[in-house]
């Protein structure tokens, strides 16, 4: 079970996919390090599943090459690739029981002594008692684990997971996230995980590639993507960001100084995705949990050197661990702030005048030439 598979990284070199005049995936280069848990994150229709299917061989790339280690597998049929897939709908064979489903791959390769391996697999996914059942007699979570076992038993170089948790309810999804992570750590196989759930991607993956419109917007570790988004899409799609359009006043020092709605804000120069020019525009961003709220009466007590903007609370909602405020300010009409419920200030109710302040180091700057609302999720995904 713990045997390390030889083979090395998955390398996609300039692969693209077009259907007629529609381009699902623009030429993209991607290296997925061996043994990593890699997530392709994006909204539906962003090309993430197509990319996955090209690695599996279920889709022929229009251009480009797929490498497994040093081997070019672009023209290899799916049944000849050392890659296995966990499908979104699980695609368990309805006419075979759990045991037969799991043994399918081994038997097709003519391996006779599969009994022991199947038992080991059943133990790994904790389904020993269900070996004789048919897929439709299992719950969603159990089916999902059979699908994982059926793929993993073949010791693929890469395991591809296409929205494997999409059909599960929230609680089960959390549980399976941990389970998958545990299995990945245990077997040490490269996992490529496609998902539209940013939280899932951040919890599970070592590396996340955020995809949008058939392109990779940004690639990096979850914390890096969250703290240093390079585009508005990433800033909005991963968590929530307050983005303010501001004018650049000064770029001389370490910090860039900008103004918006009468407030002066400082952005660390190295956290600007594009080189700001004096007199130009910059999108200034800050995450809602980095911001503190003070009542206007206490404005004097806010430390000097912090970024400050004033505004009025429009709405507040109590979430238990935190309270979320929507603040209307001259700089930004719906500034979101999450405040931990440690000491609650009774004056902070809708209508109250407040000062929002945060450490300038937590500010990031983005190129102003892009859609400020890109990646904002308006409707919860139905998948």
């Amino acid at each position, binding site marked *: 079970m713990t045997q390390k598979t030889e083979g090395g990284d998955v390398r996609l070199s300039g692969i693209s996919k077009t259907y007629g005049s529609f381009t699902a995936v623009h030429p993209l280069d991607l290296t997925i390090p061996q043994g990593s848990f890699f997530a392709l994150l994006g909204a539906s229709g962003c090309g993430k599943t197509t990319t996955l299917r090209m690695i*599996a*061989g*279920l889709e022929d790339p229009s251009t480009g090459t797929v490498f497994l280690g040093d081997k070019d597998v672009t023209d290899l*049929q*799916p*049944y*000849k690739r050392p*890659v*296995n*897939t966990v*499908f979104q*709908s699980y*695609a*368990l*064979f*309805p*006419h075979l*029981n759990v045991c037969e489903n799991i043994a*399918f*791959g081994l038997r*097709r*390769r003519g391996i006779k002594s599969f009994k022991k391996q199947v038992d080991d697999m059943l133990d790994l996914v904790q389904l020993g008692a269900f070996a*004789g*059942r*048919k897929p*439709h*007699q299992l719950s969603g979570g159990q089916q999902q684990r059979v699908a994982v076992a*059926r*793929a993993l038993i*073949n010791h693929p170089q890469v395991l591809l997971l296409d929205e494997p948790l999409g059909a599960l309810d929230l609680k089960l999804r959390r549980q399976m996230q941990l389970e998958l992570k545990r299995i990945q750590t245990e077997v040490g196989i490269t996992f490529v995980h496609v998902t539209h759930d940013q939280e899932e991607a951040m919890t599970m993956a070592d590396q996340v590639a955020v995809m949008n419109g058939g392109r990779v917007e940004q690639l990096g570790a979850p914390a890096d993507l969250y703290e240093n988004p390079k585009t508005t899409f990433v800033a909005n799609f991963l968590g929530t960001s307050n983005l303010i359009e501001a004018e650049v006043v000064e770029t001389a020092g370490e910090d860039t100084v900008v103004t918006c709605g009468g407030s002066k804000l400082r952005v660390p120069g190295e956290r600007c995705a594009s080189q700001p020019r004096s007199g130009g525009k910059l999108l200034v961003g800050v995450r809602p949990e980095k911001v503190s709220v003070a009542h206007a009466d206490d404005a004097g007590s806010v430390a000097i050197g912090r970024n400050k903007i004033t505004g009025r609370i429009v709405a507040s909602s109590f979430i238990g661990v935190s309270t979320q405020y929507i603040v209307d300010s001259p700089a930004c009409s719906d500034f979101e702030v999450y405040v931990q419920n440690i000491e609650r200030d009774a004056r902070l109710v809708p209508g109250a005048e407040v000062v929002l302040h945060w450490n300038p180091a937590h500010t990031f700057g983005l190129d102003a030439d892009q859609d400020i609302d890109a990646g904002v999720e308006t409707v919860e995904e139905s998948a």
Partner: protein
Amino acid sequence: MVVIRWIRRNLVVIAGLLTLAYMILPNIVVMVFSFNNPKGRFNYAWQEFSLDAWKDPCGVADLCGSLSLSLQIAAWATVGATALGTMIAFALVRYRFRARGAINSLIFLPMAMPEVVMAASLLTLFLNMGAELGFWTVLIAHIMFCLSFVVTAVKARVMSMDPRLEEAARDLYAGPVQTFLRVTLPIAAPGIAAGALLAFALSFDDFIITNFNAGSTVTFPMFVWGSAQRGTPVQINVIGTAMFVIAVLVVLGGQLIASRRKNNAQPQ
């Protein structure tokens, strides 16, 4: 009042039982009269109980010959129509090609055409082609009209099949042949079986098309029709009853196996 209330409460059951009786009564008549010992040539009035016909089912000249011929034709027509129909069904569901919509409608043409007209036209066709009427012309005709039913039955099944299952098989080291034999065929099997049973039943008791195109060959339905003019031997009822009993046993056996392997059952 009590009676009315009772009727009202059990209306569904009563209606159900009456409908069932409506369907089963003719079958019971066939069975009962297979034990008759008629006076004269016609088996239309009940006389007395007798096992004579059951002891000698082939006692009437040409009866068993025609039965055997009908069974052979039905068997071959089933094989032919099922093989062709299954392929057509897969092609229509799985592939996008020009005239696919038109073919989809054309498949229903033999079902929609009045059988007598079809039969007469087929005869015209065979005569013009100079074909010798007999076993082969009947078989060709039967495969033709069974096809539509097989296609319809298999298509319904294939349409409900998740194409990801075949992708999963390919992903799990099954080549095209293995994928078809191990995944596609077993999952499509209930639809194919339904189509095959339908084809067998339709072919076995077809009279009109067969009568036009059989030449001097006589199938079982033609034999029954012919003998009905001169008097109906009890053996006809014996054969009918036997077929009925066999069919019921097959169905019961199937259900028994299905309930034994309940786990095996797929949600239909």
